[in-house]
């Protein structure tokens, strides 16, 4: 299994500010994935973060709104910028290990 430490676990932010979420993995991984889960909804992939290259964003998600850093093979950050109430969601990082996908515990973001 993979041990993934994600923080903060929750935050309440004001409209127009930004939140940076950190994800630390217990061993090196090539790809890290960032998902968003809106209340009562499924998991939607935001982007794939590769070390040494720019993240690959899914349709509907842009780098200006969701900048991602991947400075090494065990760490990544996701920033949610210029927050609006519509950004209130749970954000999860995940990594693949073998056939399995493991998730961090998530960051619950509420925007006022």
């Amino acid at each position, binding site marked *: 299994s993979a041990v993934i430490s994600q923080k903060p676990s929750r935050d309440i932010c004001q409209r127009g500010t930004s939140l940076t979420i950190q994800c630390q993995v217990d061993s090196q991984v090539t790809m890290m994935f960032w998902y968003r889960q809106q209340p009562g909804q*499924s998991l939607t992939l935001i982007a794939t973060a590769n070390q040494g290259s720019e993240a690959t964003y899914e349709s509907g998600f842009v780098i200006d709104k969701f900048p991602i850093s991947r400075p090494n093979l065990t760490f990544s950050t996701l920033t949610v910028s210029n927050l609006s109430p519509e950004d209130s969601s749970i954000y999860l990082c995940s990594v693949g290990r073998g*056939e399995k996908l493991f998730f961090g515990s998530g960051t619950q973001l509420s925007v006022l």
Partner: protein
Amino acid sequence: QQPVQSPQAVILREGEDAVINCSSSKALYSVHWYRQKHGEAPVFLMILLKGGEQKGHEKISASFNEKKQQSSLYLTASQLSYSGTYFCGTEQVSGNTPLVFGKGTRLSVIA
């Protein structure tokens, strides 16, 4: 392309059985099943790779049809601990690609 899950929700009494389906209009490379309890991260249950495959143990098992377009998760003699939301995640091609998840099935087991 997002897989279609059914039913959206189901309520069971302890000891009853349930089947959750996950389907795609195109053949899949793999299907993964996850369970998420309220306020927690999704947890991996199993993966199916081969057409006609059946996997799991007697209580929680899954199948993947021959055409690799549908998978079903079987929950037998349900327990209270089975409550949660079940998601299928699918890959259309191999190679460490990110999963696309269905909308989930909320399962509630009551005493």
